[in-house]
């Protein structure tokens, strides 16, 4: 609904954060975002041929996480609503895609349009759940909101066990995904196909999200975050804005969860625990709240850090029991510690540091902090 609005060139743009007016002569926002997305798509395409299949899979995972973290950074960074329940929203999307794909497979339906349909259904169902949570969230502030979304994150995975007739309990469901179309060749690597699918879906979502941020709606998001009373006086419907932000964020989280399910070809409640929700939050905070590029850094970190600690524990030649304990927990410990340190020392996150560095190098104007 916002796409047409977003396409209109905004009268005045504010860079994020701090409200520095930026150059108005940059041309159409939509065209600029399209160009960036096309460039990113081409880069992904080139990468998918350049790297080995396992790296392709990892890249696809990064891309899927990016989809979710981008939505969360819009909600938390731009609209000021803290959600600890995005893991649960991802689970909603993932289970929807699993149920849809299983239903299609059971009826023997095949075709390239089925997966987009399932992903669309995942987005729709998450939007519905997100609207319910969002309506409640719009009435809550600060720690109350955090508490409710925390409850959502703890409770929703447990529902998979409660209604195990549908969701198959702790075992979870498998997600039947069709092989890549034959027109790509008989020996087309499956991981490359996965990267293409996740890349296409995420880039589409990001294009819409980036336009939304730059649109009238994006500005109302920020206005509500900064001062609710002022926003209300300026004629902004605060509650409606907050629900909209939550729904948008839920949609991308659902898509991200659905993409992860397609990648893993299975879903289980264990994959969408409270820890995942905390991971997402950590990713957007470390990357830099409110910035889509920050969400990208966070997503990269989510995939890279466990991989790095894995190779680290491999190098140390520990006993299997110790190595097993370290492997699952060392990334968590590093994440937690980094989160605390970043919050205390560098609230702007990685992207904040980078842009401060960039500004200092360019020395256009004295660095300003938000």
């Amino acid at each position, binding site marked *: 609904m916002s796409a047409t609005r977003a396409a209109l060139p905004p009268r005045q743009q504010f860079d994020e954060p701090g409200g520095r007016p930026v150059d108005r002569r940059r041309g159409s926002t939509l065209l600029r975002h399209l160009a960036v997305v096309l460039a990113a798509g081409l880069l992904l395409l080139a990468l998918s041929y350049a790297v080995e299949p396992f790296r392709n899979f990892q890249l696809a995972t990064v891309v899927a996480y990016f989809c979710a973290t981008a939505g969360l950074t819009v909600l938390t960074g731009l609209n000021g609503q803290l959600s600890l329940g995005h893991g649960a929203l991802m689970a909603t999307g993932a289970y929807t895609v699993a149920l849809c794909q299983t239903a299609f497979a059971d009826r023997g339906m095949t075709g390239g349009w089925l997966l987009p349909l399932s992903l669309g259904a995942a987005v729709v169902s998450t939007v519905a759940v997100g609207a319910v949570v969002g309506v409640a969230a719009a009435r809550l502030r600060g720690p109350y909101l955090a508490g409710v979304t925390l409850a959502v994150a*703890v409770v929703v995975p447990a529902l998979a066990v409660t209604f195990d007739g549908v969701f198959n309990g702790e075992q979870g469901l498998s997600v039947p995904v069709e092989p890549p179309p034959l027109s790509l060749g008989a020996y087309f690597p499956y991981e490359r196909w996965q990267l293409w699918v996740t890349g296409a879906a995420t880039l589409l979502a990001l294009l819409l999200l980036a336009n939304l941020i730059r649109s009238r709606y994006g500005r109302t998001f920020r206005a509500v975050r900064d001062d609710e009373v002022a926003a209300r006086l300026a004629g902004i419907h605060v509650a409606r804005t907050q629900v909209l932000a939550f729904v948008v964020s839920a949609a991308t989280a659902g898509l991200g969860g659905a993409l992860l399910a397609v990648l893993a070809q299975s879903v289980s409640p264990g994959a969408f625990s409270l*820890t995942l929700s905390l991971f997402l939050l950590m990713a957007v905070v470390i990357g830099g709240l409110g910035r889509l590029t920050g969400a990208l850094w966070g997503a990269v970190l989510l995939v890279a850090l466990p991989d790095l600690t894995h190779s680290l524990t491999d190098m140390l030649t520990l006993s299997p029991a110790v190595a097993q304990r370290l492997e699952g927990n060392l990334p968590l410990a590093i994440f937690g510690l980094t989160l605390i340190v970043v919050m205390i020392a560098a609230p702007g996150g990685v992207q904040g540091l980078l842009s401060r560095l960039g500004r200092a190098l360019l020395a256009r104007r004295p660095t300003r902090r938000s």
Partner: protein
Amino acid sequence: MDRFVFLTVDGLSRGAVYSAFALALVLIWRAARVVNFAQGAMAVAAAYVAYTVSAATGSYWLGFVVAIVAGLLLGALVDRVVMRHVDHASPLNPVIVALGLVLLIQAVLGMVYGSEFRPAEAPFSRSALTVGGLAVLSPYDLFVFATIGVVVSGLAWMFARTPVGLRMRAAAFAPEVSRLLGVNVGGMLTLGWALASGVGALAAMLVLPTELGLHPHAMDLVFVSAFTAAVVGGLDSPPGAVVGGLVVGLVLSYVSGYAGSDLTPLAVLVLLLAVLLVRPGGLFAPVTARRV
């Protein structure tokens, strides 16, 4: 009828623990305007310390005391090392830092103790005594009621009657004025964190024997229930936290007894949402104009 009495007693026993845990949340909220989301993880850490001590010495009571001391120290440590340095300008920041602590503490516990469930022993029998043909209280329930009763009345006495309690209340409500009057506001804040964390550790020691056992994530759902209890009573009201804890305990006990224990997490969520949407300030909040 038997079942109803049993569920009521069981619910009150669990509720007493939720009360203590909610009280710990309220203590920190009143002192520092922070909801300590790391409370559950900190309490589990203290319980693990107790487990180690008990396993080494064979004495439950030594472990029990050590858990509370560890809780006190951990609370003071968290305040001094972490929370004091967080920018409190946005209410999001302390919450995010507390969540970082959750990740860190649970990961460290997982690295040290592994993530399998360990048995948490109870000091008294958990089988119920029968009075006139009705299975009513177990000795363990009595122990829980007595301990929580002592802690709650001790805290109430401390805040209402002692100079330290007065200073803590003053530091929480008017930090600038208290500082001018010579109150060590920072010290009072640290004391508040230590007390809250000690109470949390005590609650963990009491609740873990009735759960699956000791596990880095053992207190996740207890935390959510206790948060619900604190919200039911109103985050600003210590008596509200106690009553809220008992209410939540009873509701969960009835739901799990009559509708199935699988549904208790959902019941917590529904209760939390219902209270927040109907009475956001809690059941005991005075009627105030809503801040827009």
